[in-house]
């Protein structure tokens, strides 16, 4: 690892100011950035830790929405949303292993937008709102492709606000080596509409399977999905599965999610 400067501000304002210098990079739980730096694949000159900012931590109800601070760890989310949003709790509780869950944060995961991460599916599938130090961004507008988001330089994910669906579930099929999703599906039923978000499968990162959403809005059964097909065209094809396989898994996982909820 190369040497770097390290600051650990206590407020969002201080963090934003620290990030305004060139070559500064935010550090949250460090579950992606630290291994990358240890492998000498990244060498930021300055790390701005977001882990001491109290106003970015915690889980609470904000009206009818669930507010989760961007610096909240997966372990905390898993524990504290168990009653308010069990599907999200289950998603958070199955990320990585205990040490990853104790360090990694929701803001870090969403800002990184790894195409195989769990949280992007949870946020997009829930129709969450991403709160930053300057604005609020709908999840539909936030995730813009593999490792790409709507975030501007120096902009921090300070919180994520989740509307709570009537029922929801996260169905994950793991890649055997990394144990990230090979393909995972978050299905949320809001009464008048259904959202289906898929992660791990597409080269474009997390996406909504709108065809399934439409079919399920009028007929929320596994059979409604059975007749659909997913194109393998944009799917990731690698050592662990072909594009066809991931397309197939998208359908299987969605059907299983709906069967479990219906």
């Amino acid at each position, binding site marked *: *690892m*190369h040497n770097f400067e390290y600051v650990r501000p206590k407020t969002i304002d201080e963090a934003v100011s620290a990030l305004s210098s060139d070559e500064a990079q935010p550090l949250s739980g460090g579950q992606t950035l630290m291994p990358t730096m240890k*492998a*000498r694949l990244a060498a930021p000159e300055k790390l701005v830790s977001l882990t001491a900012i109290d106003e970015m931590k915690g889980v609470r109800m904000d009206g009818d929405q669930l507010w989760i601070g961007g610096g909240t760890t997966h372990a905390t989310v898993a524990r504290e949303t168990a009653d308010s949003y069990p599907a999200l709790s289950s998603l958070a509780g199955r990320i990585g292993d205990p040490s990853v869950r104790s360090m990694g944060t929701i803001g870090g995961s969403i800002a990184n937008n790894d195409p195989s991460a769990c949280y992007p599916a949870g946020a997009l599938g829930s129709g969450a709102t991403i709160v930053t130090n300057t604005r609020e961004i709908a999840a539909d507008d936030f995730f813009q492709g593999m490792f790409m988001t709507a975030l501007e330089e120096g902009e921090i994910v300070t919180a994520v606000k989740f509307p709570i669906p009537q029922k929801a579930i996260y169905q994950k*099929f793991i890649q*055997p*080596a*990394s144990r990230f999703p*090979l393909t995972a599906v978050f299905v949320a039923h809001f009464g008048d509409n259904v959202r289906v978000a898929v992660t791990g499968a597409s080269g474009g990162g997390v996406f909504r399977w709108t065809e399934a959403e439409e079919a399920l809005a009028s007929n929320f059964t596994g059979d409604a999905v059975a007749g659909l097909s997913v194109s393998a065209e944009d799917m990731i094809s690698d*050592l*662990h*599965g*072909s594009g066809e*396989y991931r397309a*197939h*898994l998208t359908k*299987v996982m969605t059907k299983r999610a709906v069967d479990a909820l219906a």
Partner: protein
Amino acid sequence: MPKDGGIGSSTKRREDVRFLSGTGNYTDDINLHGQLYAHFVRSDVAHGRINSIGAEAAEAMPGVVKVFTAKDFEGVGGVPCGWQITSIDGNPMQEPKHPVLAEGKVRHVGDPIAVVVAESLEQARDAGEALEIDIEMLDAVVDMKKALEPGATKVHDDLDSNLCYDWGFVQENKDAVDEAIKNADHVTTLELVNNRLVANPMEPRVAVGDYNRSTDEHTLYTTSQNPHVIRLLMGAFVLGIPEHKLRVVAPDVGGGFGTKIFHYAEEAFCTFAAKALNRPVKWTSTRSEAFMSDAHGRDHVTKIELAMDADNNFTAVRTETHANMGAYLSTFAPSVPTWLHGTLMAGNYKTPLIYVNVKAVFTNTVPVDAYRGAGRPEATFQLERVIDKAARERGVSPIELRRQNFITEFPYATPVAVEYDTGDYHATMDKVLEMSDHAGFEARAAESKKNGKLRGFGIAHYIEACGIAPSNLVGQLGARAGLYESATVRVNATGSISVMTGSHSHGQGHETSFAQVVSEMIGIDANQIDIIHGDTAKGPMGMGTYGSRSIAVGGSAMVRATEKIIAKAKKIAAHLMEASEGDIELKDGQFTVAGTDKSVAWGDVTLAAYVPHNYPLEDIEPGLEETAFYDPANFTYPSGGYVCEVEVDPETGKADVVAFSAADDFGNVINPMIVEGQVHGGVAQGFGQAMMENCAYDADGQLISASYMDYAMPRALDLPMIQVDHSCQTPCTHNPLGVKGCGEAGAIGSPPAFVNAVIDALNRGGHKVDHIDMPLSPDRIWSAMHAAK
């Protein structure tokens, strides 16, 4: 009922106290005064010509002491190969030079180009990035069959081709085998890949070189399974250091699985650089480096044909294998696909005619060598898979087809040059079917079907040749070393014992189980006995631990030395009790005179040996220390029956192993708990190979499974509790303990059981799938099911 702490007792492992409390002493725990750090700069291309290496800027950086390249090793030998194979045409194998640092060309991703030595590791790594290395990329040779095509790019320009050797065994039988296959009632053919693996011991490799200018003595601390062998290979063939000036220490070692047998360039480098710089030099592998510099395992591509008569008796087996050597010949690489593989092709079966052809091939990949089982898993896998396929083609039970062809009379001389001394394959078959509740399988399969799952039952049997090996035999077969083992038993004046063994424990629990043997023989508490290993300065020349040889060969050496101790101690006891030597009996640490109530204690005799006031000095010397070298008369032949039960999810292709039973015949067993642990570990590694692990290269020779993000290691939760039994015991007839060895069995016997179970599940579900290459990932199973529709 075994004696507490003696043979047959499940004594808790004494070494676990330090391993589990974080007080082990591993090579990376060793830090010497004035130590420097070595960082290896490795090739990121599979094949290329080194035009220039600019080190000026790097050498000027803070803390950098020196940058080493191949030119610093002019006049230094290459890393040697310890086994020579002769091709069918009578020519010796092609044996390229394996330089310590790449000379002129790089030949695989990870091939070391230069080493930066600096005051700190970070300084060395920083300087490594400042090296100006100009490499002209060349076409990479990755696929073995393409590597043998005329005009293929050569990995080594000075060799005739990429063919290392073309081996035929037994060549004299080839025509008869061809004839038998031509005339057979039925021939089952199977083409398969035995996937390349990375051993991934928990502790990565480490080397620390030290040099004492006043005595001209070198010391190498290294993560090795066989420090004496490293001393011999590195001292005699690479650096030209005589044994009395070279000490090699392999302290606590965190797993080896074969990949720490071999002599590596990094060991030679640290030893060499310590003298050149007159300061200790340390190298600690990162996990990323381990993936591209530890010798890999397996990587065979095989076609096997099994011929049968009208009654399904096996009449002949013919195999053709391409075996990947990688870019250079690692220490024992040539022996793995040949003598450790071809000689096992009879398996448990009385097939009268067998012919094995192996073409070993150089490619632009990491060298391949022995990995837990080494050749024997490759033999067992193809045989047990083709038998399953044959049973399906003939419409007979795979269990009955095996039983019908089992060898039942011992000793049994196979047509592939080995003689099994003992075994009872029907007994292990009976036992494993009982353990796995074979009778209840159909009911369980019906239950699975109700839940939308396909259940499969996979059976496999195995035979392995362990306890390697008779030195005169392996010498004829091309080994450039003997394969005896040594032990020195040093009895101290007050009766405690230090045993110096040439075996090396890197997780096997020798410190416990070896002490049990000596405790049993003498009758003193095992806590009075220490087992010392891993330091060439402490024990006699030993050959180390691999090939499930430690208890069978190292244990036998220890028994022989202890027998000498007891014989001498009896003479002393006879003198002390004024009795005839022939009347002395030793029991529970007491010497008695038969038919009398006279006795002296073990401690009285040992004290007399070192304070010889009342002592037969005219007959025997004072002291009580004996050494024995044991050279086995034959291999040992552990065998067993394994059953795996899987449930396949037909929608995703995911196969869950729901039950696994192992009935092994290891002969006599010293510590059943340790043996059980060895089988668990072996089966877990077999599961890894069969279901998860896949070391993969792309067409350009880039390693695409170069980290745990893509190389899938099994975890405890991936497996059910493994049922283990070793009550079927046909003791080895030619070693004093009647033991056969248990270290590799699980990794040898289990892969075909896993695969057979999945194929059975698919066929029961109506999917006509003959074979899927390992690892049986969900993607591969799903794809095979859909291709078969």
